[in-house]
């Protein structure tokens, strides 16, 4: 029944326009501003739900398509649509934003209207990135995303925010310039910016490799992949809690999404011939970054590094597909790897959001992120401690939580590519548990560390609502991931069929 409605446009523009309204309303009636922002976020989430409920999982065709000319001179269109790959990420975006708004409720006292507006606008722009089917439209949303995030870190960030924002901006901007060149090149080849048209574009191997590398620069920075990851810990440390949540839960996913929407289908032969590069980078991320996370003293840095290691599973899952296709012993498994990567993205959205929110809860009270400033939090905040242990276990990939699902699928799939890939990937079972639970041991358990901890108040209803909802999401996805896998199944199979055919 919703198939004819412009749901995607609504999901994009409702929060953006709403964001500007919130901005215009100012900070005089901060309470009303917050409620308005929340109402807009909840409404956006509700509006986005038909994307799931009315989604037809039996087809790989784009659904909820909207197509209007935008700049006819250059054949640029306002062209939106979703398939099983982008739809879950859009729902993730609208879901997480609601909790970011709630999490910033009374914590943000400085210009709350600007803060709320930035996140709402951010939401619309990110949905735009996931639903754009015109490359130029995609690029506009892609770059537009930087501005609110830049402001969020720059205005509400920590003491070293200028360095962090500049680093963040330069890193990501550096990456996207090359992508723009590649997009324009393909425009000249195909005569339009239609992304699906790019998929069918015949390209020679050297062209493909150049385009692949241009995309890689953009997406690897976003994911982020080792060795272009160092902006992320700095950005997280300086960002306010909400900024970290959006950054980890959704912005990183845009890099992973880019690989599936652009790199794999547009340059399948280059992807195939350079798969060793991405696999190496991914495995280094899993192992190297895991060790680095172990020695972090700052909770946010630790979780940031943990994010990089977890995103390593995403790119690993995507690119082992090529090795599995080439392996005569493995009859199947390529779909498993890519779906595993997708599930890992959604799951990481919930878990990393929750972990950063947990740190935020502590930071709001004691204004420190140092692990050594805590200890024995469970004695004064038992409910919070329970949540933190739960999310830590999810982060360590415990079965029954969503953190297990993606890792399990990717490990099973990488076994089919090469035994040793699976061995390296599976080390996360040990290292991931080590850094997460060691932090939990020092923060949550033990004797009450100091007077600050002794005076802590347990989480209030607002915080309970946020953490509880995320805990439910983590649990449901862990116990029953089938609904998520089903919606993406056909699209990913279609993608795989497409990339299995050489363009040469």
């Amino acid at each position: 029944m919703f198939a004819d409605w412009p749901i995607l446009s609504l999901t994009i523009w409702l929060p953006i326009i709403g964001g500007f309204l919130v901005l215009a309303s100012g900070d005089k009636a901060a309470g009303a501003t917050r409620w308005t922002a929340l109402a807009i976020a909840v409404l956006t989430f509700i509006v986005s739900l038909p994307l799931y409920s009315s989604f037809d999982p039996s087809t790989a065709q784009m659904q909820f398509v909207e197509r209007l000319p935008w700049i006819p001179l250059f054949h640029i269109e306002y062209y939106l649509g979703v398939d099983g790959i982008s739809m879950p990420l859009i729902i993730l975006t609208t879901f997480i934003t609601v909790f970011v708004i709630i999490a910033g409720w009374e914590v943000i006292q400085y210009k709350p209207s600007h803060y709320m507006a930035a996140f709402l606008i951010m939401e619309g722009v990110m949905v735009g990135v996931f639903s754009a089917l015109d490359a130029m439209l995609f690029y506009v949303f892609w770059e537009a995303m930087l501005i609110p995030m830049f402001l969020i870190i720059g205005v509400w960030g920590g003491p070293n925010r200028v360095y962090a924002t500049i680093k963040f901006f330069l890193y990501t901007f550096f990456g996207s310039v090359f992508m723009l060149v590649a997009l324009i090149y393909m425009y000249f080849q195909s005569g339009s910016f239609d992304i699906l048209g790019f998929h069918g574009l015949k390209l020679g191997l050297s062209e493909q490799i150049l385009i692949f590398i241009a995309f890689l620069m953009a997406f690897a920075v976003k994911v982020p992949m080792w060795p272009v990851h160092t902006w992320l810990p700095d950005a997280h440390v300086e960002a306010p809690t909400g900024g970290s949540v959006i950054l980890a839960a959704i912005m990183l996913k845009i890099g992973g999404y880019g690989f599936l929407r652009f790199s794999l289908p547009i340059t399948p032969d280059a992807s195939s011939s350079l798969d060793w590069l991405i696999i190496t980078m991914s495995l280094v991320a899993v192992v190297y970054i895991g060790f680095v996370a172990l020695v972090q003293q700052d909770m946010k840095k630790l979780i940031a590094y943990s994010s990089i290691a977890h995103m390593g599973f995403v790119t690993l899952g995507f690119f082992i597909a090529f090795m599995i296709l080439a392996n005569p012993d493995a009859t199947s498994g390529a779909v498993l790897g890519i779906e595993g990567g997708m599930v890992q993205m959604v799951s990481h959205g919930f878990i990393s959001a929750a972990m950063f929110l947990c740190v935020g809860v502590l930071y709001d009270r004691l204004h420190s992120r140092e692990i050594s400033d805590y200890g024995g939090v469970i004695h004064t905040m038992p409910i919070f401690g329970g949540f933190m242990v739960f999310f830590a276990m999810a982060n360590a990939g415990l079965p029954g939580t969503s953190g297990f699902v993606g890792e399990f699928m990717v490990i099973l799939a990488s076994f089919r590519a090469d035994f040793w890939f699976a061995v390296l990937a599976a080390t996360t079972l040990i290292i991931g548990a080590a850094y997460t639970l060691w932090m939990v041991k020092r923060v949550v358990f033990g004797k009450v560390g100091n007077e600050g901890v002794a005076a802590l108040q347990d989480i209030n209803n607002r915080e309970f609502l946020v953490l509880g909802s995320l805990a439910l999401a983590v649990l449901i996805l862990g116990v029953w991931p089938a609904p998520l896998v089903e919606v993406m199944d056909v699209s990913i199979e279609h993608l795989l069929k497409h990339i299995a055919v050489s363009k040469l």
Partner: protein
Amino acid sequence: METIYLLIVLAPLLGAIVAGLFGGRIGRGASHWVTSSGVGLSALLSLYVLFGFVTGGLEVFNGAVYTWMVSDGLRMEIGFLVDQLTAVMLVVVTFVSFCVHIYTIGYMAHDEENWPGESLAGSNSYQRFFAYISLFTFSMLMLVMSNNFMQLFFGWEAVGLVSYLLIGFWSVRETAIFANLKAFLVNRVGDFGFILGIGAVAMYFGSIDYAEVFARAPELANTQINVWGDESWSLMTLICVLLFIGAMGKSAQVPLHVWLPDSMEGPTPISALIHAATMVTAGVFMVARMSPLYELSETALTFVLVIGATTALFTGLIGIVQNDIKRVVAYSTLSQLGYMMVALGVSAYAAGIFHLMTHAFFKALLFLAAGSVIIGMHHDQDIRNMGGIKKYMPVTYWTSLLGSLALIGFPGFSGFFSKDAIIEAVHFSTIAGSGYAYFAVLAGVFITALYSFRMFFLVFHGTGPRDEHAKAHLHESPKVVTVPLVLLAIPSVLIGFFTMEGMLFGEWFRDVLFVLPQHDTLARLGEGVHGPVSMVAHGFAGFALYFAAAGVFAAWYIYMKRPEIAERIKSRFGIVHRILDKKYFFDELYQALFAGGSRGIGKLLWSLGDRILIDGLIINGSAKAVGVVAGWARNIQTGMLYHYAIAMILGLLLLLTWFVI
């Protein structure tokens, strides 16, 4: 029937949820009622299932509950496989768990004393404890009832989680939260192998369902795969060894045994339930369940055998020098787990499971009795401070005696049948390593008797506690503590006598545990044994019984009759004592190598890789380079028109040349 199976697992889960989430509101009494009755219901239904199989009224059930996901043709389900093996495990788990629930009402009654006064976590620790042990029961049941590898892994990790939570239950104690992290990480090392094993199964069998995998196993028996260069490995060996690494973690086999002694930091009821009777035997259960795979790889069987024999012998030796009452029992558990692994290694799967069952009863009994002593001694666990407790705690004394006799294999007691079956099976075995294993299990009998009765004599006999204050307060524990002891003492003594015929030599496991004819050591033993009485008679003809008697005598002579001998041995063999006291230095080695090593690697990668190379050299370096170039470029911007004009002309020329060429 499916409803009953669902009830068996869901009743404890429901109890755990109610007590865990609402324990603070419903109070202590309601919490222990809801959890105990949930587990009690499970226990009754499990007995019903067991009797169904005994009378032949029940068929093997194998079915899915729901589909977890289907990806790439790989169907992953949550489902149950209930056969004779499962039925035995169900009864063992739920019965011991039920006893432990009752016992906990007494043991944890004054738990608030273990927490700092202002701790909010301490205010409802009693309810939380019940939630955890019920959650554990649920997880363990999911593990044993699973019909596929994924759910097995679910249960596998879930019991690990609850074990983690319970070892660190008294989270104010630094030793407890060190021990639980250690336990979790060591187990994760095992799980690392386990998940790779599942990966291999999924890849080569195209399924993770037990029935499908076992059915296809024979045709893949001779498959060779290239793992490293051109060297080819047998697929079955790879799968079985990888899966067994998981079992080594969970069942604490050398060299992954280091977490189990430290797990004694947890409250005693869970030492009995998790770290003696059920969770640590999951590895044994798993290997027995996978017998259709293990039978196809003699290399893997030898691996299991050697690891098990080493564990049985060397951890038992450590038990002799321990002075903490719980640690003695813990090392005894390690050693007995080694016995079970030995049984699996010689393809006597039934004997392994049989020993698992008898051990669950008498070891849970010994732990709970130790806990009862600990209550009496006001949480002093050092056996050197005890003595003469017999007259103060008669029920504890007599049940401990029965448990200890069962453990050392006193003729007719349950432990006798299970242990003797293992020893004889090893004797009949011809696979590589069986000679070493035979020596290890025989020597182990003497050692078991020695450490068991050393502890028994030191605790219950001799002169009373040195501390007069402790002596004045010594009295028998309340009924909620002693009744479970009696409940467990009954099967510890009797169950072997009544079930050995069926479980070891009879029909019971025939269709469940797969044994190749050339490996069938139990069948060879069965040729000479007809019924329990004949088995006892057979025992008198072997060595083991006399070794056990010698052990008891040695314990009595060294520690009771002539205590100075113990001191003299200790000083004479100082090095040996030190090695045993330090547990062969495993902890020190691991601490330095793995804990220290990974922190070192982490620091190195972080400071050298991330901060100096990437950030320092490339990122900030390129920023600096931009600065330098910009500074240089600034000089070009002179602001004079003719400079710019020349630059443009030169540029145009360059471009033109480029296009022309």
